[in-house]
């Protein structure tokens, strides 16, 4: 979990979402629907985006998981986070942890995505406030910064 090993005894019905929020106190991952339709609970699991509300805790055994708490710090933000701030792309903020993770995971695998590929990467996370526009622009700019090319 964000670079640190954890050994836990979990209930059979506990979801990864519950373990993250209730046991590890990582409140950045949110429950928006509980049915895998909104993506607010997105985490990165072994390099893939997953809806943590649909992963049983026991299914996350031995996996490498990244949550928003493992991305950037006040002093050193991830380029996606910096760009979101620059464009005021965060409104109510509820989908932002998931959006940052989706952007980061995309850039980890594809450093020069097209605008269409960015939209694809975040298509599993719903946002009701922003219309996605500035979020896509933010990820595009972060890609540019990370690959040394102007967006």
């Amino acid at each position: 979990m964000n670079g640190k090993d954890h050994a836990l005894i979990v209930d059979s019905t506990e979801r990864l979402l519950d373990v993250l929020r209730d046991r590890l106190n990582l409140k950045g991952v949110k429950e928006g629907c509980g049915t895998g339709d909104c993506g607010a609970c997105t985490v990165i699991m072994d390099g893939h985006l997953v809806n943590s509300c649909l992963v049983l805790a026991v299914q996350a055994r031995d996996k490498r998981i990244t949550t928003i708490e493992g991305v950037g710090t006040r002093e050193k933000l991830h380029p996606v986070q910096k760009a979101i701030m620059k464009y005021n792309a965060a409104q109510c903020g509820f989908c932002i942890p998931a959006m940052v993770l989706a952007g980061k995971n995309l850039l980890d695998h594809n450093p020069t995505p097209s605008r269409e590929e960015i939209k694809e990467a975040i298509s599993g996370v719903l946002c009701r406030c922003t219309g996605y526009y500035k979020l896509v622009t933010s990820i595009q700019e972060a890609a540019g910064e990370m690959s040394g090319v102007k967006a």
Partner: protein
Amino acid sequence: MPGFNVYVPLSLDDALRYLEGNPTDTLPIAGSTDLLPRIKRKQVSVRNLVDLSGLTVLKYIKRDQTKIRIGALSTIADLEEQRDDSASGRLLNDVTKKFGSPNIRSVATVGGNICAASSSEDLIPVFLALDAEVRAVSRNGAREMPLKEFIAAKRKTALQPDEILAEISFSELNARSACSFQKLGIRNTLIIALVSVAVLLEVDETRSNIKSARIALNRLRGKIPQRAESVEEELLGQRLNEQTIRNATEMLGDELMLTSDFRASAEYRHEAAKVLFRRALAECQASIIRK
């Protein structure tokens, strides 16, 4: 979440042994994207879940001479990531692109999609058109059967309580074959199909006549994916041209028995199915001409 136990098997054999010992109220679970919401909504009552997600022995996509074999625990993302430029590779790529969302594709499995046995499962019409076979394994051995026999009714497969779906396989398409998948939903992504159609056409050596046709829709005369076999038969030996496509479309229209619900009326689904079918045929035709 309503209560259940989870058994984490150490091997495939371990999983099969558990299933054999717990024949009632026990279900395998893999990607959980279909099963967990249903358990939550109390549409499914289960006492034990067997977590297959760690059985990497069933996660593969391989070519075995002319057969493509896909392990049932391959995820949709695994299918997406395989860069196979064959006709079937491109078809599967096309389907996976329209499947759920990236988050769902990461964990949803091929086996899970097939065993869910409903018109919402995108892979089923595609594998039906590919004339796929499935292999179920138990401690007593393995058995194979055509996919179309495996899907018995809505949410019912031929899987016995002590069996796991292990593999799905189909023959690679030859150079005289083309395939097409068309899906219509209410929005572009993260969507259950209103109508989906998969068509596979093979032409003869002259490349003018249809040697075989396989047509599958997510709903034909009920609420499960089926092959439109009478239309397939009708197409045999026909010239692959505009007239044939038109006739086949009309015939499919006569075969369709669709129902209305709050998402769309039967009339609209009927119209849309005909249009998607015609487009699938036309796409196959264009692809064959190009080769």
